[in-house]
């Protein structure tokens, strides 16, 4: 089997107006990719569609949906499969940072984060796993976060939504990996996107296009988990080793 595969040519993007998803699609478009894009805002979807078509995409189907509405998932995903013929690559990119201070003392705020980042993704992954397992092919890539590796006072509601997601995806990989289905968990650190622009800049901040390049490399190499930038894999290895007794007293 060749090391580097052909880039996927029939691509489903969920949360297609997120900064990272747009950059992934922009990198794929020039090779004549067929896309099906799902996002909430129809005007934004139209501009992403125009951008990808101009860059060389062969076709771009769009669908307006709020992915928190899990009842709509089966309809949206079957339409994507019908329009694309086959889904070869599905990228799940929607998510919110939420407001930790609000969410730690207000359940509806915490629930909103968990519904958006975890439960809605679980619903999509359930459908897509069955689809890919059935067709014995496909790559499922999900944008999670390095934050899910440990619980910190400053963002544990967001972090727990991603931690749950990471374990769920690990299980899915264990189930379908032997059937030729590739499950990629993407763990970016701090990315300079509209979601984070109100925060002070951090060390090792990556741009959406750097993250997108790394995602496509991880897809080509069939990696299971991709820390972005790569150095975070080493840093987080040691962060996970910090004993709980010490971790709990750290100012994080």
């Amino acid at each position, binding site marked *: 089997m060749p090391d580097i595969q052909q880039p996927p040519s029939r691509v489903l993007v969920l949360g297609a107006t997120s*900064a990272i998803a747009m950059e992934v699609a922009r990198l794929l478009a020039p090779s004549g990719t067929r896309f099906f894009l799902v996002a909430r*805002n129809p*005007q*934004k979807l139209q*501009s*992403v569609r*125009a*951008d990808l*078509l*101009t*860059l060389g995409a062969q076709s771009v189907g769009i669908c307006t949906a709020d992915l928190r509405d899990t009842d709509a998932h089966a309809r949206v995903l079957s339409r994507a499969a019908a329009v694309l013929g086959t889904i070869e690559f599905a990228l799940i990119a929607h998510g919110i940072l939420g*407001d930790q201070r*609000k969410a730690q003392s207000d359940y509806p705020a915490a629930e909103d984060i968990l519904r958006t980042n975890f439960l809605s993704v679980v619903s999509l992954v359930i459908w897509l796993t069955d689809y890919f397992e059935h067709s014995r092919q496909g790559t499922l890539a999900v944008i999670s976060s390095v934050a899910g590796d440990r619980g910190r006072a400053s963002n544990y509601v967001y972090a727990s939504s991603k931690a749950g997601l990471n374990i769920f995806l690990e299980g899915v990989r264990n189930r379908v990996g032997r059937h030729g289905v590739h499950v990629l968990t993407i763990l970016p650190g701090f990315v300079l996107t*509209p979601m984070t*622009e*109100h925060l002070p800049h951090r060390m090792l901040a990556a741009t959406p296009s750097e993250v997108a390049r790394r995602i496509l490399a991880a897809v080509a190499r069939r990696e299971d988990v991709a820390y972005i930038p790569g150095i975070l894999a080493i840093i987080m290895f040691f962060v996970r080793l910090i004993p709980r007794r010490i971790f709990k007293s750290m100012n994080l």
Partner: protein
Amino acid sequence: MPDKSSRNESLQDFRSWGCYPRLHSSVVPLHWTTDFPLSDPPSTAMLPVGLGRSYGDCCLLDRGTLLHTPGMSRFLGFDPNTGVLRCEAGISLAELLTFAVPKGWFLPVTPGTKYVTVGGAIANDVHGKNHHGAGTFGRHVPRFELTRSDGSRMLCSQTENPEWYCATIGGLGLTGLITWADIQLRPIVSRKMAYTGTKFNGIDEFLAMSGASSGVDYTVAWIDCVSRGNNFARGIFMQGTHSTEPEKLIPSNPPRLSVPVNMPAALLNRYTVSAFNSLYYHKQIGRVKHDAIDYEAFFYPLDSILHWNRIYGRHGLLQFQCVLPVSDGERGITSLLRTITATGLASFLAVIKVFGDIPSPGMMSFPRPGITLALDFPVRNTISFALLDRLANITMDHGGCIYPAKDARMTPRQFQAFYPQWRQFARFIDPAFSSAFWQRVTAHA
């Protein structure tokens, strides 16, 4: 409090390329053409800014709100038959070239850096080395959308809202936010430029060479602004045309060199700059040199070094660019050069060019027929400012005009004499918009 989290409310030190003056504003990034008007409009004045490559204060606003456009950078359509590209206004010319060059298309007009946005190129109605044959950038923008702070969106072209079309081209970003634009590209078959460099000695020789090369696509000259005596006004006249021999059109690599920190301003003094000027002049050994060079090297020699403005140190740099009518141009330019060489203030990036007579649609556009001279100086206490004031006065005496995109110093009296149409233009300014430049040059004298 939570609603504010969606916007960056802290005052930031957004810098123009000259790093002078330094003003504080809040910066609101725009990612979509629908992000403006803002859902929560600020109480301060607003101004769209792109990549901040204007030198002076036309992209600044003291205690205002800067609408940062580079996030609006999508392509909206391209017709390979006509070469018309539609794109969002925050896209940079660098991104545009990466897209267009492999398809065999090039910018119709390009300034000396590709790190400017399309919106900024329209708002300053930028010009390039082909002004004598192609006119300004705005001439190649058949249509764009202008969004006003009241939410109205106007399609602007020679036939749709033509008065807004003319006010916005060269309108310094004051007439509203340009959300997208159509650009008429020009075809190329190779990245290469057929280049000729010819040494000259004196303004008269330069003018003779310019006159003889009106059929050449691109012409510009580097001129030595330090040497006196026999070497006064020596320089190299550079001509280029797009190569007509087909060659593989690959995209450019991103630059690898960068000036990481501000250098001590003392490094740029009359001795180092004088040495640089001599080296530059003698780098070309013969009187005439022919070469085939990449378009990056021909159009954007400084873009290969990121943050080159830092060589001027932390106080920044001042630019001066004027145009003088041809009739009195030779005398005027000589007078400017004598004033500069007499002070000995270092300027090693001086260029001179003859503008053509192709009119721009822009109401407030700077380029007009004549000889244009552009140079830069370090900001060094009062000497630099006194020199700029003298240069502005000479420009005025010779019936010339100064370029707002490079200015941080013009007085209201000078500006209003250079641009007598400013009052008519003011009617088109968005009531919620302003700029530090505009406040300065329209203040009561």
